[in-house]
């Protein structure tokens, strides 16, 4: 069997060790080489800093809460449904929506790297990428939930989704009591990013 021969050559060590200088050096070399365009970098950053974020996911959840036909379609084929709202894209090519109920609480992790549904939730938060979350979420999800101040009823099962492939999961949190009659925009404000990862619950009105 061939061996992965790359283990000994780590070219990155040739760059400055300080991360800010390391990025700067790579950007300089690649720009001089004609391989990257600094204006394109600005455009990518603006996209993830200002245009794509968890309000997209909140829109999907609020609509699922308000529109039963939409909810059914979302649970059936999330990729098609979120695409229609314009939320298809990089790291969201294969979407599955999972719904929290009294019986089961869903929570999403990527233990092997930090896979995350970018078009719906934006760039993953620091804790999602942390060793602590990646290591612990699968073995002791309830203790991790406690770190977020969340305690589940004792009969509720936890189902943790480890994103090991290119499928990305969106948690549909439970709709809070006392929200009857609220419109989609008002409901969106109750849907936190963490509630769509499963480390939080939707806010109470």
């Amino acid at each position, binding site marked *: 069997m061939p061996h992965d021969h790359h283990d000994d050559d780590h070219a990155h060590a040739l*760059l400055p060790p300080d991360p800010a200088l390391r990025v700067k050096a790579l950007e300089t*070399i690649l720009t001089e080489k004609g391989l990257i*365009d600094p204006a394109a970098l*600005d455009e990518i950053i603006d*996209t993830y800093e200002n245009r794509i*974020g968890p309000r997209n996911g909140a829109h999907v959840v609020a609509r699922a809460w308000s529109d039963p036909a939409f909810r059914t379609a979302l649970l059936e084929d999330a990729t098609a449904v979120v695409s229609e709202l314009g939320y298809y894209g990089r790291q969201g*090519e294969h979407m599955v929506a999972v719904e929290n109920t009294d019986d089961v609480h869903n929570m999403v992790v990527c233990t092997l790297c930090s896979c995350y549904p970018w078009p719906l939730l934006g760039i993953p*938060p620091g804790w999602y990428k942390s060793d602590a979350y990646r290591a612990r*979420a*699968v073995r002791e999800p309830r203790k991790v939930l406690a770190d977020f101040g969340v305690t589940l009823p004792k009969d509720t099962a936890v189902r943790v989704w480890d994103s090991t492939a290119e499928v990305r999961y969106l948690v549909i949190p439970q709709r809070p009591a006392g929200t009857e009659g609220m419109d989609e925009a008002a409901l969106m404000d109750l849907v936190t990013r963490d509630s769509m990862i499963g480390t939080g619950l939707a806010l109470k009105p």
Partner: protein
Amino acid sequence: MTRVHDMGGRYGDGAVIPEPETEVFHADWHPRALAVTLACGSLGQWNIDTSRHARERLAPMDYAAFSYYEKWMAGLADMLVDKGVLTPEELASGHAAGSSPLADRKMTADAVAGVLARGGPADRPAQIAVAFSAGDKVRTRRHAHNAFVDGGHTRLPDYAAGSVGRIVRLHGHHVLPDAAAHGLGDRPEPLYAVAFAASELWARPEHPRDEVVLDLWQSYLEPAS
């Protein structure tokens, strides 16, 4: 034996620290690192599996010490040299020695929106028959290893190796990362969501009804009773 990135179930990492939704990047260089990496993807010299493996094969000491975007930068630099896009001399000097023949593939500012919106779907036309259906019991490979390359990339985490689970659903036929990361082609296989009882995976599960669901390729699985 897998690599240092395969940390699911590990002990000793401490608390998870929540943060507000408004914090997207934590240092000025983070967005640059993200953008440089995405822009280089357009050069077409690697796929997502290659780039994951580049981060995973960092020395364990580096992997543990580097923050998320430091891993990205190190993996990117290693791939750029490995694929012959940059030379070690260029990395060491901090400057390019001439322009690149790949320059015509450079991602331009007006192409960014389209590239991000198109993404890179991993599903492919079916080439092999679907072996399992929802409810079937399956056992994962005893060792979380790459079947083609010793020490190569795989998406079966060690904590779920040799375990019995239940097929939840078929996602379709997806590129096999174990092959694609090593230039061995897409080799698409049926990809399933497979549920494992927490008690199958852990010595002390938190709750008798808890489950962990993983997305696993057909060749990782065999029938179980």
